[in-house]
């Protein structure tokens, strides 16, 4: 039993933290840089357009979030229970936001 537990408290090394820190700064620079360019849009259907700027900004933000969660917040080295809880929490959050936005964004469809 004790052997099993000894592996559990994993100490993340300063080198890993420094790498994550550097990546986060690079991500910040990239997202600011990307905001200076018009990345265009994708007309999926009449009345439905996807603008790439917010997509890129949110993709970079999510990458940064994942780095923070996995390394700074130790989820990568946490017990499965923690991993599952974090993942299901984020999933639940996406479901709630996704459903709400799907409702609001489509209310006016077909009315023009």
């Amino acid at each position: 039993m004790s052997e099993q537990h000894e592996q559990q408290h994993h100490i993340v090394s300063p080198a890993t933290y420094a790498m994550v820190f550097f990546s986060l700064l690079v991500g910040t620079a990239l997202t600011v840089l990307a905001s200076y360019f018009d990345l265009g849009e994708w007309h999926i259907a009449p009345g439905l357009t996807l603008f790439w700027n917010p997509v890129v900004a949110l993709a970079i933000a999510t990458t940064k979030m994942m780095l923070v969660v996995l390394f700074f917040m130790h989820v990568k080295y946490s017990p499965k229970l923690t991993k599952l809880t974090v993942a299901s929490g984020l999933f639940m959050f996406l479901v709630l936001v996704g459903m709400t936005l799907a409702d609001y964004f489509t209310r006016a469809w077909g009315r023009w």
Partner: protein
Amino acid sequence: MSDSTAIANGAPAEAQHEHPPYQRHHFASVEQQADTTNFAMWLFLLTEVMFFGGLFTAYLIMRNWYYQPFVDASHQLSIFWGTANTAVLIASSFTMAMAVWSAEVRRKGTLLLFLCLTLVFGFIFLGIKGIEWHEKWEKHHIPGEHYSVQSFVNPQSDPEVYKEYHDAPLPADAAQKTVEYFFLYFAMTGMHALHMVIGVGILIFMIFRARSGAYTTGHVTFVENFGLYWHFVDIIWIYLFALLYLISRH
């Protein structure tokens, strides 16, 4: 050796104390105690995700409804200060992670150094936020009685922003919708800053406790869980920065 052994032997668990003093008796081991508190902290953070999630969702819905007023209003934010604050907060997250590491390897001096650095970065963040808010105050962009739509019905009256974006004037009714943007801007950054202020308070408490060696005895749970909180606040800012400052530039 665990409590269960002691009970099996018929000896009172109290008399044994074969575990560190910081282990509560209802936990089988220090590891179980650490995992449990860690799990509880994550549950709390998930409620926080839902809390901020409501604000983010409101923002996305409103931005979709009043697209042009939201775009023009967000042009009032300074990319320079926003980027600077993002860097400051990321740096504070790094120093906080290093503080957790210092506690884990039981180095009191390094722990104090990194806690103090985190505190300093926290104050810098709040200071920059104060500069930004003060600018909104001066331009009458705080929702309320003294709100002014001048910058939006007549963009040229605001030369600093105009020279960068060349926004077309908004009709009076649309310009009024910029209030919604600033309302959400203050609600979201204000709520975020409140979390920072609470964090700064706990950091000061931790620095005093760390000085007397509280976290360098192998019991790092408090530092670790505070780290989770601090990183969470960092994550919220990462999204605030993207949504409030960046996505409306084009």
